[in-house]
């Protein structure tokens, strides 16, 4: 084995490993950027009397995309963490479960409240609270990883949640698609750049 062989082995193994055992936050953020952009973009197009696509599509597409996104995130977490343990892994897994359990419980609260609200108020409630939760989790994750850029993204997302609520329906969907999805996209690009 020559030194060049050794270096080639190290580099190819590191490439292989980074895909299999390292949780790549850039990948997950990129996926969520797409989910939010497409999901809430479709919700906007399918809402109201002047909708350009059928209403059921505007309700179904975001739901399916968000549930699918959660399944992919959890599966990805399990796959990269399989057989590996340690303080960093534990912290990461706990943080991951905050997202999943947070959103499941948020859905329960919003479904319960939605029974007493008009359609447009329900829509507003869902969009503003989910964006707010994303912002809070991003900012608290930033505290965990001591990351200023990620923290700023979280704060931006929280501000967008407030703006989405004030924008009213259906403008809130546009705030969600562009500001919410944009936050994830920005974070994905930044994390990818930092990961290299």
């Amino acid at each position, binding site marked *: *084995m020559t030194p060049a062989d050794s270096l080639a082995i190290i580099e190819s193994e590191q490439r292989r*490993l980074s895909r*299999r055992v390292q949780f790549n936050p850039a990948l997950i953020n990129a996926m969520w950027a797409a989910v939010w952009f497409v999901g809430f973009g479709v919700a906007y197009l399918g809402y109201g009397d002047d909708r350009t696509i059928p209403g059921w599509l505007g309700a179904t597409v975001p739901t399916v995309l968000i549930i699918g996104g959660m399944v992919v995130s959890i599966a990805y977490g399990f796959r990269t963490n399989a057989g590996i*343990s340690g303080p960093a892994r534990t912290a990461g897994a706990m943080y991951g479960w905050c997202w999943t359990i947070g959103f499941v419980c948020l859905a329960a609260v919003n479904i319960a409240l939605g029974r007493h609200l008009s359609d447009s108020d329900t829509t507003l409630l869902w969009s503003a609270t989910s964006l707010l939760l994303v912002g809070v989790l991003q900012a608290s994750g930033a505290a965990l990883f001591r990351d200023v850029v990620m923290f700023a993204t979280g704060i931006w997302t929280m501000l967008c949640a407030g703006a989405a609520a004030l924008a009213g329906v259906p403008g809130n969907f546009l705030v969600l698609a562009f500001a919410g999805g944009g936050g994830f996209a920005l974070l994905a690009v930044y994390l990818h750049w930092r990961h290299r």
Partner: protein
Amino acid sequence: MSSDDLDPVIHVQARLRVMVSLAALAPDDLITFPRLRDLLEMTAGNLSIHLRKLEEAGYIVISKTFARRTPVTQIALTPDGRKAFDNYVATLRALLPGTERQPTEGTAP
């Protein structure tokens, strides 16, 4: 400097691959034997032999615990092991001009 300066414990393909895998984990992380074998696509016997060599050199620790009566073998790089791996990579780069790049740390946040 010549190839003789390369750490003979690490400078064997199978053990080098083990070291790269372990160095890709965060400093206090442990990996189970089956997952490591699966990642490296080595046979259990072959992997055991190389792990023992690395353990004798003090580069890794092998701990055996029980999870609901099933024995679990976990492997982790020691601080000495990480240092030895970093030195090995630095020596390689010194031997190969034009490749002096920061060694990849490989620990995701």
